[in-house]
């Protein structure tokens, strides 16, 4: 499936933090401990793992917010380390980030227009039409251009965040838990939008989540991370149906399945639960 060209490659990446703690001295946290990943054009790579396993650190490092202790990052085949600061910046713009918290990722003092226009202004490509076009592509009407984020709901804010990420025509979107702060009824809206955009724009997604059902729904391949390392990586179905790593199995076993008929105390079903028909074999 993933035979197309790689757009983002991470090779043996290490990120360390020194933390002062305890009564004496400091200790070193290997937040990312030798991670290698390859994301191909057009695919969605899901990255799952428990809280604190280093997912966000990995992402921050890709965007230059953390300095790696060692390892390589390649974007569209070019090693970041080989480039000048300007070159790095240009190349990094091919990869964009969508944040987890729709409430803190938009500057509450700016209007929606200003928020989406900002990346365009920074690179000197601002045009109002472009802003409108971007917003409409995520389903936000042009008549709301002057409103501030406070006047939008969580789902709408996340759409605005996506529009901002799309402003520079990136090839890759890194999505750090983009729906986990959203209500159940709104999650699906955003997921659908992401799927549509991927199809239209040939985007590649590095999709981070700890909600496994979302990952399963969206991903082509899935990587399971634990304590700074990738413990298993593979095709979605392989991971979900034939997990080879113990930890993956624990994770999967822990997901509550939204079908009461699978309970031990389930009465004989008069008719199949709606959710089960959807779910097929489980």
């Amino acid at each position: 499936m993933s035979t197309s060209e790689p757009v983002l490659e991470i090779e043996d990446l290490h990120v360390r933090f020194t933390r002062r703690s305890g009564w004496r001295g400091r200790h070193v946290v290997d937040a990312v401990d030798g991670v290698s990943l390859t994301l191909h054009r057009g695919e969605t790579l899901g990255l799952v793992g428990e809280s604190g396993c280093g997912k966000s650190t990995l992402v921050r490092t890709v965007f230059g917010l953390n300095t790696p202790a060692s390892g390589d990052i390649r974007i569209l085949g070019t090693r970041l380390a080989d480039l000048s600061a300007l070159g790095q910046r240009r190349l990094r713009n091919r990869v964009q980030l969508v944040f987890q918290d729709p409430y803190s990722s938009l500057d509450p003092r700016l209007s929606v227009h200003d928020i989406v226009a900002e990346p365009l202004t920074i690179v000197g490509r601002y045009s109002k039409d472009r802003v409108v076009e971007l917003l409409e592509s995520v389903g936000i009407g042009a008549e709301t251009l002057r409103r501030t984020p406070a006047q939008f709901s969580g789902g709408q804010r996340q759409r605005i965040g996506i529009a901002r990420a799309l402003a520079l025509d990136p090839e890759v979107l890194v999505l750090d838990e983009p729906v986990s702060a959203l209500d159940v009824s709104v999650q699906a809206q955003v997921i659908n939008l992401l799927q549509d955009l991927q199809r239209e724009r040939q985007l590649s997604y590095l999709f981070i989540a700890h909600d496994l059902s979302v990952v399963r729904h969206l991903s082509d391949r899935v990587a399971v991370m634990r304590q700074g390392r990738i413990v298993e990586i593979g095709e979605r179905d392989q991971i979900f149906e034939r997990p080879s790593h113990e930890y993956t199995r624990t994770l999967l076993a822990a997901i509550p399945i939204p079908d009461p008929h699978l309970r031990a105390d389930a009465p004989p079903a008069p008719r199949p639960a709606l959710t089960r028909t959807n779910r097929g074999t489980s």
Partner: protein
Amino acid sequence: MTREVLLRVDDLVVGTRDGEGREVRLVDGVSFEIAEGEVLCVVGESGSGKSLTMAAVLGLLPTGVEVLSGRVEYRGEDLLGASERRLRELRGRRLAMIFQDPMTALNPVKRVGAQIARAVRLHGDRMTRAEGDRRAAELLASVGVPDAAARARAYPHQWSGGMRQRAVIAAAIAHDPDLLVADEPTTALDVTIQAQIMELLAEARQRTGAAMALITHDLGLVAQTADRIVIMYSGRIVESGSVWELFDTPRHPYTAGLLASLLTAESASGRAYAIPGSPPQPAARPAGCPFAPRCELPTKSERCRTDVPALRAMAPGHTSACHHADSVSSFAQEVTR
């Protein structure tokens, strides 16, 4: 099925005042019952009034929010009119509560063991300090804290989130309560820990025979634990019934939409159903059915915009607040495709 009613909530209205001093109903006429030993799940979007409802039951509403009308009965005893003294007696002893965020649920400046011992001794007639400590260690051990006696001397920040939630549960079950109110007890935890905690709660219930009111957004948890479900939307109950009925034959478009929007592998090819729009603020609740602006029921009518639908019995123990409850099944079938 004919278990005694433990808790009855009748037409409860909880409100506050907005900046201009106008009354805002945050919980608007909620009624439900919990039978002895039963698990009731309260499901709904953020801000739908789940927490406030249960806080009102225990008399723990935050400042500025109050019960405007309604009745809450515990084994026939009126709780809203009860003295503060009586309520304190019930809380912790008969009615226990577990909150969402284990990181802040324990007092950071007191030792974990001491906090549990405190819960123990508060209702443990003239128990000595040593007995309290011993009992606390027992309780901690019973919720699966290894090396409980030693760990009890640590402070909350030295415990992980999952461990803290265990401690909170240990304190809650100290007096074999009749009702455990758990307000999103696992939302802040990882899935693996969530599973452990849910199992722990189930065990504890088994041991004590307590009923449980579980507040959650997670339909997976609901499917696994609930006997009955109450679906709340914008401060009102829109549907309630047994877990089987609600999952198999939802009678409200909101419930149907929730179920349909669950993401699964198969829908990856197609698309998951998404309820459009977002829920209203309590202060800006639309005139008729609060769900009407988002409702995609084909039979949706003008009435939905003007009349507030009342809860109607659809089947024994199954109620729905939809003017068009009858047409929901086919809608449900359709959107889940």
